[in-house]
């Protein structure tokens, strides 16, 4: 930590978990979350676009190979879960997987490095892992949720969708309100669990990184262990988010 003896651990952690923001109340915008996520999204888009532009069917170069591995991995995941024809799901899954992976990967950057650099330019707050901001994860989940609603209505029709929400699990008409409540909970739990799972995992991970940073010189091996553990967590969370997105969208396509 070494950010001066005058501040306590509590203040240190609190400082590192505060977003750089402008505006008041609901109109607040977290500049750091927005900036880093857009930056990382551009890294993803530009990297993959550069490969897509030169994509050849011949012997691929190293970068093309790496990108194709990711694309094929996502394509296989989509094909194993979603058995229909939809031009949106696969690119959506790819975007979610790579973007979330890159944003999660910011967790590996030492917790003080980026805030310190920005401090030199007079920027006091800098939270560099966008997925530790619920705004980020809820935005992703909300996007997915809108698509779930859109495809549910498009495939089943409004009537079919309402029927699905009311006529099961109990078949009797008097229990339709109960069914509706149960199904609404199921439906709303999907984006909520998507957003909160990613946010919770990454926020907790970041918090532990910060706690480790407060224990003095012993932080080095402990930090290493925790970062190594994140080799598992970071891709796993990106993968889970992607897989659940595919799963929810394929459920939305199922017509009973």
């Amino acid at each position, binding site marked *: 930590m070494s950010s001066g003896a005058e501040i306590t651990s509590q203040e240190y952690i609190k400082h590192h978990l505060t977003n750089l923001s402008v505006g008041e109340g609901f109109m*607040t915008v977290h500049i750091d979350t927005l900036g880093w996520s857009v930056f990382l999204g551009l890294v993803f*888009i530009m990297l993959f676009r550069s490969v897509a532009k030169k*994509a050849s069917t011949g012997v691929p170069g190293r970068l093309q190979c790496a990108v194709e591995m990711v694309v094929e991995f996502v394509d296989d995941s989509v094909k194993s879960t979603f058995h229909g024809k939809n031009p*949106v799901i696969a690119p959506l899954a790819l975007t979610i997987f790579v973007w979330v992976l890159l944003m999660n990967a910011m967790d590996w950057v030492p917790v003080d490095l980026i805030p310190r650099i920005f401090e030199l330019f007079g920027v006091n707050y800098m939270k560099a892992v966008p997925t530790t901001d619920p705004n980020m994860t809820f935005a992703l989940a909300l*996007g997915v949720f809108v698509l779930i609603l859109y495809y549910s209505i498009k495939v089943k029709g409004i009537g079919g969708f309402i029927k699905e929400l009311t006529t099961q699990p109990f078949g009797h008409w008097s229990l339709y309100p109960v069914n509706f409540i149960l199904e609404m909970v199921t439906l709303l739990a999907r984006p909520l669990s998507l957003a909160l799972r990613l946010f919770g995992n990454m926020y907790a991970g970041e918090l532990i990184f910060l706690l480790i940073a407060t224990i003095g010189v012993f932080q080095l091996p402990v930090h290493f262990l925790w970062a190594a553990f994140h080799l598992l967590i970071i891709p796993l969370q990106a993968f889970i988010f992607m897989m659940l997105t595919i799963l929810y969208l394929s459920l939305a396509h199922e017509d009973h």
Partner: protein
Amino acid sequence: MNLNMTLVGELIAFIVFVIFCMKYVWPPIIGAIEARQAIIADGLAASDRAAKDLELAQEKATAQLKEAKAQAAGIVEAAKKREVQIIEEAAVKAHAEKDKILASGHAEIDTERNQAKEELRQQVAILAVAGAEKILERSIDAAVHSDILDKLVAEL
């Protein structure tokens, strides 16, 4: 948990990225992958076919070789037969020639012997006449006594 305008901004960014990915990133890459997969599948199928063709060709070549060997053996057999036949024919011809030559030789000898006999007879007749002349010391009229002489010659 302070949700605010950041969410809206992120949502917009998300939508933009997904649309861009859908339009300009995913189709070319997956297209290249699938095209390459098709090429590789074609190549593998072609190599399979080529291997099968090679096997067939080898079988054919083996069969042809066998046939050729059989034919060669047949030709050799026929040639041997012909050889024997030619030799036999030649032998028969030679025998015939020998017989002919021998026969002509015998005929020649016979004529020569007959000639010699004739000559000898005449000589003997002359000698006999000469001998009788000497014995009688006088000339015998050959014309008168020719019938006797002829008888004598015929007896020889």
